[in-house]
């Protein structure tokens, strides 16, 4: 019961603020609403007993990425951008098509609900008390079975770093 309440609350926030994100004229406002959406998602994570991810979401996204965004928005002079038109002229067609796609996929998901377990092999989730303490578990698998992705991620981030530097570096 509580679960549901929490879920719907956060889900509602997430969706609404997501919509606002893509509809606000002002990029700063979009950023703000994006943060809201991400926070709501974090709430969902929590509802799903993924505490570690919840933290990461808040720290990394909200703390890191969004700061970057806002920073860049400030860098590129905003007031001009705001005054320009914010939506591509094809927006209606685009909207139409996106919604059609949404309907299509939604229908697939909806129709597959008839299948037990929504078409997913397991019928119902492990009871919450059977779950291992989340952070340890994540750490466990991160450094045992997902060691390699961890290493690759370092390379990935290195590349990102180099890239950002190369790109943003003042021209010599």
């Amino acid at each position, binding site marked *: 019961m509580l679960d549901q309440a929490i879920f719907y609350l956060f889900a509602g926030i997430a969706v609404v603020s997501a919509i606002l994100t893509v509809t606000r004229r002002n990029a700063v406002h979009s950023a703000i609403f994006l943060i809201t959406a991400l926070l709501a998602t974090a709430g969902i994570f929590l509802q799903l007993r993924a505490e570690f991810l919840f933290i990461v979401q808040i720290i990394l996204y909200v703390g890191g990425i969004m700061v970057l965004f806002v920073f860049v928005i400030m860098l590129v002079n905003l007031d001009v951008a705001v005054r320009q*038109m914010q939506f*591509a*002229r*094809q927006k*209606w*067609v*685009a909207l*139409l*098509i*996106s919604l*059609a*796609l949404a309907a*299509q*996929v939604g229908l*697939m998901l909806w129709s597959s609900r008839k299948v037990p377990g929504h078409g997913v092999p397991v019928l119902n989730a492990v009871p919450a008390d059977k779950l291992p303490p989340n952070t340890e578990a994540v750490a466990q698998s991160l450094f045992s079975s997902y060691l390699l992705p961890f290493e690759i991620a370092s390379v990935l981030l290195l590349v990102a770093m180099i890239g950002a530097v190369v790109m943003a570096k003042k021209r010599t």
Partner: protein
Amino acid sequence: MTPTGYFLEHLWLIPLFPLVTAALMLLLGRRLPNGAVSVFCVGSVGASFAFALGAVMQLLSAGPENRAAQQILFEWLTPGPMLASNGHLVRFTADWGYLLDPLSCVMVLVVTGVGFLIHIYSIGYMGHEGGYYRFFGYMNLFMFSMLTLVLANNMLLMFVGWEGVGLCSYLLIGFYFLKKSASDAGKKAFIVNRIGDAGFILGILLTAVTFGTIRFTSAGLADVAANSGILQALNGALSAQTLAAGAPVLTTIALLLFVGATGKSAQIPLYVWLPDAMEGPTPVSALIHAATMVTAGVYMVVRMNAIYQLAPLAMDVVAVVGVGTAIFAASMALVQNDIKKVLAYSTISQLGYMFLALGAGAFAAGIFHLMTHAFFKALLFLGAGSVIHAMSGEQDIQKMGGLWNKIPVTAKTFFVATLAIAGIPPLAGFFSKDEILGRAYERHPALWVVGFITAGMTAFYMFRLVFVTFFGYSRADDHAQKHIHESPQTMTIPLVILAVLSVVGGWIGWPPSLGGSNQFEKFLEPVIFSAGSTEAAPQSSPREYLLMLASIAIAVAGIWLAYEFYRAKRFAPELIAGKMRGFYRVLFHKYYVDEIYDALLVNRTKDLGTLLGQFDAKVIDGIGVDGTGWLARFGSTLSMWWDKWIIDGLLNFGAKLTQLLSFPIRFLQTGTFSTYALLILIGLAILLAYYQQHLHVVLRGAR
């Protein structure tokens, strides 16, 4: 026993002499002096005449039943096994071989003899012309081809000669190739002949598949069984009842071959080339277009007489075409003013006579007339040439006249020839023509009537020619007047010899009814196929005398009429012409046949060519090639401007739609990036829809 002897074993030398000299002339004749040229060329023809004589003598030494000498030099065309019409496989071979039998005896003698005389004549006639060596080279080449034609032992080799003479006539007609009319005439002659040749080839092919061989006969060969000939095969088929007289295949063969004959021998409908051929030098007209080449058709039909005799229908066709041509050409000859044109038409008409004879089954008579005609027509042409020579190139008889005393030899010999062709006994023409008419009567009186009228017309136009040319006052301009002179001896001597021949030449065929014993016919007996039913019916001699008298009468009448018109001038021909102007004009324009042919066939063919060329350029290339190219380019432009036309079109449509829904829309140019992104979404949607639908069909087995 088959006749043997040096000459018979070296038959191949007869055509070889002219060939060698011809090659000599054409390769390095330019460096030779005229004297040497004439010695070589005339000498070579003389040599082959001598060899021909020798060969004939040695042949005559044998008994009549096996008077045939045949020798195969090598296998020429051996394309491998051929499926004959009776389901046998035969190893088809066309060998390079020569056959001398009575028929080819006559031909080879006529060709070499007359040819020899004409060569001599040409020395004088062509003396002043440029390209002397070229002329004689062509003439010798012609002799070679003609001899190959008459000596060939199979149809294909005969065809070689056939085409060869055609080529030489093309070259010689076009000898003055600077004159467009000349080269045109040459081309016309060749192409018209070519049409006939097509028929000939088909005839050969049909013969080949029907009889499995194209060798005329195996007579005179060492191993008769090994390589049999048409004659033997035909007999075999008859005895085996696989073929009967009048079998359609035989008729087809006969008719196809006859198409070839009409081409070469200038019969309706393919005679049109011969009058134009008079563009050539006069000796050429004499040799090729009077004495020898044009008679090739006759010779060929006689060669294949076995088949013709078994194809009555074809015989009728031959007879009708022959007689038709005879009168048709004669009528045209009535009004011509060009001396050579008159002779040309008379040649056509005489050839018509020969075919009439063949059609009537009188093969010997046909050959007989061929020979006599060779004599007097050659004489006439050479005489005409001498006249033209005297008149310094003038050919229109209306500009001549009163030459009788100025060029006596020419005039007298010409007169003899005229008598001969008019059929006045006892000159050569009389016997041959009379025999033809007689046999024609037996075949069908109508044939005789037409031939009879033609005889009269012949007498008329020939004497018209004589009177207008040689008698009366001269109508030539005085410049020409001064130069009138008798031709040199090289030209007159042949005239005299030919004149003698035109007189006595006919006597070897002195008919029994006049106490003679038609030697000529007996001589040709062996080569005339006798299986057919056309036995020479014992004729009641009174009727024969009647016919004889009639033909003499009509000839005299024609002569008298010509005299009244053109000598005594008792009636003016202009009046007649005036009275029936239309008919006269038609005659004068030779029935407009050339024009009709041009309008109906020649130009239409050219138009077709143009049309098809256009078709290539426009349709096949236009639609086929460039069309696809265009399509590709179009397609690429399409996909290139996919954004602009499709996406934007979609957008505009959406915009319009939303506008209709009264949503304010500001038009700005499309954002490329979002277009791409949108395309990705669309693709995603499409793939999803497709895959879902596909699985729906597969898994629900529906739709």
